[in-house]
């Protein structure tokens, strides 16, 4: 109990005392996961909507593949990105391995099918007659798709939350491709693993608190959005 209580106390002190190392780790985590999420949203939302709204041969197979991708184990993604970026790999020339870029790439790959798949199922659930009605009212194809996304906004917001949840707390892939290098690629989750292993509970607890708070605030912000109509 003594150790636990001391850890919590120390953790709070680190957070509110503005410990430089702790905050650098937090900012890097937000930067990496934020960029990965942004990328997966920019690609996953339009693609998910497009698959949901169009008809082409092989669509069912593609949908099955997207749904399978939603459960990609992070370590498998990590392994794949590692092999791609390793010096002898096909993208080795980029020199990204053990940099934040590699971590963004891995997390974007994890979040992308989540965002795309949940957007897809949300848009697929909309009344199929809505689109022709919108077009008959003068909506261009692009306007019609955007308007359908509004009707599906709850589902799209859930997709974004799931995408963020899937990567901000993810440890396997960032560990493998980032390497947990102090001051360079150390993020909250990898730091928590390391500090705990080394018995530095106060740092681990401080970071856990922040990780929890970030997840909480993000969810709250996104949930508030669904109350406001997005027009």
């Amino acid at each position, binding site marked *: 109990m003594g150790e636990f209580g001391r850890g919590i106390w120390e953790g709070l002190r680190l957070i509110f005392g503005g410990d430089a190392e702790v905050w650098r780790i937090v900012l890097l985590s937000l930067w990496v996961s934020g960029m990965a999420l942004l990328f997966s949203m920019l690609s996953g939302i339009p693609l998910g909507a497009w698959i949901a709204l169009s008809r082409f041969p092989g669509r069912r197979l593609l949908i099955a593949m997207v749904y399978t991708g939603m459960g990609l184990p992070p370590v498998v993604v990590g392994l794949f990105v590692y092999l791609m970026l390793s010096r002898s790999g096909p993208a080795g020339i980029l020199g990204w391995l053990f940099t934040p870029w590699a971590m963004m790439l891995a997390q974007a790959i994890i979040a992308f099918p989540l965002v795309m798949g949940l957007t897809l199922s949300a848009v697929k659930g909309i009344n199929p007659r809505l689109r022709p009605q919108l077009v008959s*009212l003068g909506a261009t194809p692009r306007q019609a798709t955007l308007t359908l996304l509004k009707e599906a906004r709850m589902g799209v917001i859930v997709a974004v939350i799931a995408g963020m949840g899937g990567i901000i707390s993810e440890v396997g892939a960032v560990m493998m491709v980032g390497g947990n290098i102090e001051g360079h690629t150390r993020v909250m989750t990898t730091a928590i693993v390391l500090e705990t292993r080394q018995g530095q509970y106060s740092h681990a607890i401080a970071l856990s608190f922040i990780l929890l708070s970030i997840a909480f605030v993000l969810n709250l912000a996104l949930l508030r959005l669904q109350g406001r109509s997005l027009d």
Partner: protein
Amino acid sequence: MALLKIKGLTKRFGGLTALSELNLEVVEGSIHGLIGPNGAGKTTVLNVVTGFSPPTAGIVTFHEQDITGKRPHEVARLGLVRTFQQATLFHSFTVLVNVIVGCHLHSQIGFLEALLNTPSHQRKERAIQEKCLGILKFLGLEGQAQELAANLPHGHQRALGLAIALASEPRLLLLDEPVTGMNPEETARMMELIQRVRQIGVTILLVEHDMKAVMGLCDSITVLNFGRKIAEGSPQEVREDPVVIEAYLGTGGHAA
């Protein structure tokens, strides 16, 4: 003057001729009925006129402008707006927002402007909101403005469909079976609304099975059977036309 002119319109689906050399004119300011037994080709006329389905042959002009082969949203932007057989609404939005969505398809609000919520954007939004409330009032829906569309009774949902169509400022409304599936009360109410819409200067082409509604509303009526026009004239003339009676009796239908 004829607002909509259809000349020599033919539509084939493989071997099936759904429309055969149809000529039809809708006079500006009128309510024109298009009736006929099941499978006569009524919906096909609407699909071709609104650009959802290209004609095999023939020309469609709207306000002297050739619109044959134009895409659906281009046709709509000229003022030729169609509603579908089933009411299609945004169930997750309020009644008012449903109409606003219809308005937004035509407003000149830029994405950046909306994102930054500039004063000029706020002004435009207020103007749109006013306009949409006006439309709801016009159709007697102002009391339900803040209700979720999904919670409206059937008759009101169809009225909301009409409101959304009006938000895009049509000159010609194509209504596909607006009273089908309604009880007599709802039907009478919808007929009154359609009359009201015509009174503000919107021309109407009405496809409908309900003979009482058609006879009560229309200035003139075209009757189709197997894709051909078999009669045309005032409700009185059409009702007494032996060819029409024959066509309806032949399919077990009922001309009033």
